[in-house]
Structures are given as C-alpha cells and as structure tokens.
C-alpha cells in the first residue's frame, strides 16, 4: 500500500484547518471595524 496519499492528505487537511484558524479572526476583525466605522459615520451625520 502506498503511503503517499495518506501523507499528502494529512498535510493538506492540516494546512486548511490552520489557515482557517489563522485567517478567521483577521477577516472577522476587518468586517467588525468596517461596521463600527460605518456606524460612527452615520452617527456623525445625524448629529
């Protein structure tokens, strides 16, 4: 039995999980900051 597909699969899946773990907070932070800035701009306009 060739071990290569198991090794490649293990490294690929781990890379995907780690990329998700690393980038999820970055993406969420950008979206949160955008929301907060929009809200602040709307509040400034209404005042």
């Amino acid at each position, binding site marked *: 039995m060739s071990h290569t597909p198991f090794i490649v699969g293990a490294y690929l*899946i781990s890379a995907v999980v780690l990329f998700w773990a690393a980038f999820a907070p970055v993406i969420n932070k950008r979206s*949160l900051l955008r929301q907060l800035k929009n809200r602040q701009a709307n509040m400034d306009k209404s005042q």
Partner: protein
Amino acid sequence: MNPIYLFFHKTGSPPWFYKYSGKLIPWLWAVFLILTAYGLYLGLVVAPADYQQGESVRIMYLHVPSAWMSMMIYGLMAIMGFIALVWRIRIMEVLVISSAPVGAAFTVIALITGSLWGRPTWGTYWVWDARLTSELVLLFLYFGVIALYNAFDEPRKAARAASLMSIVGAINLPIIYFSVEWWNTLHQGSSMGSSGTGIHPSMLLPLLLMATATKFFYGANLLSRARLTLLKQDHRKRWVQDLLSKESH
C-alpha cells in the same frame, strides 16, 4: 502599589493589552513560519522513513505536536478559567474563550492525521480505543465551551460559564494522558517521558521543531482572537472609539 499587582493591573487593561499584543503578533507569526519551514524540511526531506511504519511516520510530525497542543491548550484554559473566576480578571476570561477555537483546531488535526496514519499502519481509520475516544471527548468539550459562551447574551456571564466548563472538563486531560497505561489500547504508549526517549535524533529534531512552532501559532492566533473579542465587547467604550477615530484619520 505592589509591582506584581501593578503588572497585572496594567496587562489586564484592555487598551494596554490591545496595543502591545498587536506589536507582538507579527513576531510570533515570523518565528512560527521559520520553525515550521525548517521542521517540515527536516521531517519531509532529511529524516529517514521508519523501519516499521515506513513513510507514514512523516504524519507524526503533524499528529504528535497537534495532540500535545490539544491537551496543553485545554490545560491552560482551565488554569486561566480558574484565575478568571477567582480574581475576576477580565482579560483571562477573554483568553479562555479565545483559546477554545485554536484548541479545537489542533484537536481536529490530531484526530484526522491520526486516522490517516492509522489506515496504513493499523489497517483501520478508527477504533473505539481509550486514547482515541478520550481525544474525541476533548473535541466535544471544546465545542461545548464555544457553544456555552455563545448561548449567553451577556459576554461576562458567558465567559464565566465557559471558564467553569473549562475547569470541569480538565478531568479529561489525565484520562487522555494515562489512557494508554490504564487500558489495553491499540494506540501505542508514550515515546517520550521523564526517562528519556528512544526516538532517533534525526526524527526527534523535526518533531521538537514542529512542537515548538505550534506554540508560536497558538500565541499569535490567541492574541489575534483576544483582540477581536475585546473589540466586540468594548465597541461602545471610549478606547475603541478613539482607536476608530485614529484609524479613520
């Protein structure tokens, strides 16, 4: 003021934590990337195949550090949860809840890579063996902490409940660690212990490099998540408003 109290008071302040953790994160990522690149080179190119496991031993350079991290992070969550409950230090609550997704990610990797290693070595992807089952329970504990935190509307109440669950769930850690000694398991016993290791240096070095790299991944990812949680919780507070004004100018 006592210097120790002063230190905790300062580092526990959200604006201070946000500012200085932001400076630390790029360095942690840099060390993680360097160690991972070197560890992968040694593990995939330089280290020989195992005389029994063959080439599939290369999965161990991912599996073992991930399994260690899955337990270490939960242990840290229990300690930080205890500090958060006893001394009511808010930053500790934030660190507990920010650790849970990182710990869950490492547990998923440990389970999947273990399963992919098991097929060519044991002839099966999964057995309901004590080590594998207790590691799966650990994943459910991580999911439980995350779900419990999200079940509350009030973030501090949510974080305290999650901290309590982290402490209670820590009972699973000795079960995972000693499962290979307490029960007859298919999973082999520990190759490293207080009496040393039987692993050849050509395999030990990449393993230790990858294990160290995962610590830096945890540090960088934890701080990123903690900063995000602080922004979410404090978005109406003055320091966040000031931060937004500075960024928009």
